[in-house]
């Protein structure tokens, strides 16, 4: 029983990180029909930016701020202006393929400029345990969960409770009408790219102490977040959150109770089941789109 509790906590902590990444995924899709296959690499890169900042002498807290800012410039602004905008004209598919190329590019660049080897990364949460319901739970798991939940709460508050959020939603739902009623649609789209960049940088900060900073670590994360987004519902932020948590827990339970060899298969099988029986995702809404 204690092992089930530990597995749930660890699964939720990993799932919360998947959720952050998956939320960014769905945001980009909703506002600009961008399926970002480089999302995993977007999580890998900020850790290296922070390491680079520390390498030139910045203390950890400053490196975090610089890393997040650089991520927002590179993975938000530059990504939109240099890749998404020019490719968007050619349709969703060419853009998706361009993001795959970007994923390879980022991975190889990190391998080239940093190292092919893993590097350690400091944790923002101290190691240690606290007792919850008689179980020792690691502070790191709690820290990851708390930061991820705060980020998601902040985001949903922004989207649902502020005028800016309403404008973003309007721009996502119907850009033409939004434009007529005076919503600066372009600026709103840019804002979602910046938010995505912030979320991936945050995910990077949380996951890298556990997974280590390595050029290839985005592969697993990108895939998990993609599955989470589809399972939860590609067009709903809350779907991505639920999907992320679910995949994190499922992955851990599969590793413990099925087998380590097949752990990666279990979320995939779940994904196929969702696509077959509930293609809009668990919390998504059905929508039709002309192709």
């Amino acid at each position: 029983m204690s092992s089930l509790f530990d597995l749930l906590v660890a699964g939720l902590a990993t799932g919360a990180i998947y959720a952050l990444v998956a939320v960014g995924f769905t945001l980009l899709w909703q506002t600009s029909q961008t399926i970002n296959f480089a999302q995993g690499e977007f999580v890998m890169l900020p850790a290296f930016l922070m390491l680079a900042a520390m390498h030139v002498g910045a203390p950890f807290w400053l490196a975090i701020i610089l890393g997040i800012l650089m991520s927002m410039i590179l993975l938000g602004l530059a990504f939109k202006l240099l890749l998404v905008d020019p490719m968007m004209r050619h349709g969703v598919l060419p853009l998706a393929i361009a993001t795959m190329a970007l994923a390879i590019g980022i991975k190889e660049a990190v391998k080239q400029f940093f190292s092919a080897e893993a590097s350690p990364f400091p944790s923002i949460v101290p190691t240690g345990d606290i007792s919850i319901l008689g179980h020792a739970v690691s502070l790191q798991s709690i820290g990851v969960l708390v930061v991820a939940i705060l980020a998601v709460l902040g985001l949903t508050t922004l989207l649902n409770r502020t005028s800016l959020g309403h404008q973003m939603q309007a721009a996502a739902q119907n850009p033409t009408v939004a434009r007529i009623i005076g919503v600066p649609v372009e600026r709103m789209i840019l804002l979602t790219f910046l938010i995505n960049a912030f979320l991936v940088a945050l995910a990077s900060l949380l996951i890298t102490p556990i997974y280590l900073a390595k050029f290839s670590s985005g592969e697993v994360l990108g895939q998990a977040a993609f599955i989470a987004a589809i399972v939860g519902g590609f067009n709903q932020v809350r779907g991505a959150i639920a999907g992320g948590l679910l995949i994190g827990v499922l992955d851990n339970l599969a590793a413990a109770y099925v087998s380590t060899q097949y752990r990666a298969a279990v979320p995939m099988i779940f994904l196929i089941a969702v696509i077959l029986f509930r293609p809009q995702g668990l919390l998504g809404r059905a929508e039709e789109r002309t192709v």
Partner: protein
Amino acid sequence: MKSTLLVGALLTVVTTTSAFAQAIKLADVAELSGGGATVGTNWKNGIDLAIEEINAKGGVLGRKLEVTHADSQSNPGVARAQVQKALDAEPYVLLGPGYSGSVKVTAPLADEAGIAQIMGGEAAELTQAGNKFLFRTSFGQQSSMPKVAKYIHDEMKAKTVAVVWVNNDFGRGGRDVIVKELDRLGSKVVADLSTEAGQADFAADVGKIKAANPDAVFVYLNEEESARILKELKRQGVTAPLMGETTLIGQKVIELAGDAANGARGHVGLTTDAPVDLIKAFREKFSKKYNYVPDHNGLKGYLAVYMVKASTEKMGKVDPKKFADTLHGLTIKAADEPGILMDVTFSDTGDIDRQSFLVEVVEGKQVVKQVLPKVK
């Protein structure tokens, strides 16, 4: 004028060719990227350091050494293609790869070509296939695992043991020997966990270890995964003593795992912290050249080149066909060839006999607790 130019050009070609013919060509295929990048990079740097030293002192039998490095991407398929390519260029000796799985698929190629292969793999089966051209730079699992099992049983007094291993040739080979040995000694394996190469998340595996509540945990994974599981073991508060091999307590693991590596113990065939003067000197030279402290793979690469030197000087000529015969059964003494660092004897199967060490990580440093002597 034209003919003078032609003669000049011809002369240049002739001199260049003769200069090339004089160099002894070695080919290295290693894990320079992918999961084994730590292994391959250390191995490569060790090779380069040894060659630089040897060439600075006039080479081997008056000829310089040259090496080409190829990247196996830690992938046995790529390793096979790279080794084939390297063998096509007819090297004197083939160096690498470091991963047992890659050695397994490339050894038949070198065997067929009749070229000696000096490699870093430690899987037991590698030298048991009757290959006459394969040589180790470190202990095979059949030599090291019995020492580890004995330590777990006698010194750690563990009645129950959790064994966690990586599901590849290296991991499976080690797991098979240690489980058999523990069983023979009377320590019970209460959890037998296979994990995947490149696995990032060890929460579930550590959860199972915790549930099994063993007296000791034997961890047999590659370096990066070792670091991740050490962190997870600490995160979930597992307090059972940890025992492993070189891959659990290597420099890279200590760097990656930080505090979580403290207290981990391992049997080590080669360590740069060994209380041996020649190894200390090696460590200093390596750190000075590459700005980091090498792990045992740096030592392996370095030794591989000195094995080439010692065996060739013993033969008194550069003969790729006779190289393997000469190295079989050869004892190289560190007093005669300081580059070999410790006295070593090669068996007829290419296995080695050498002293080894029992190491514990104390405050982020490898501390040698015991020196285990050469068997013969």
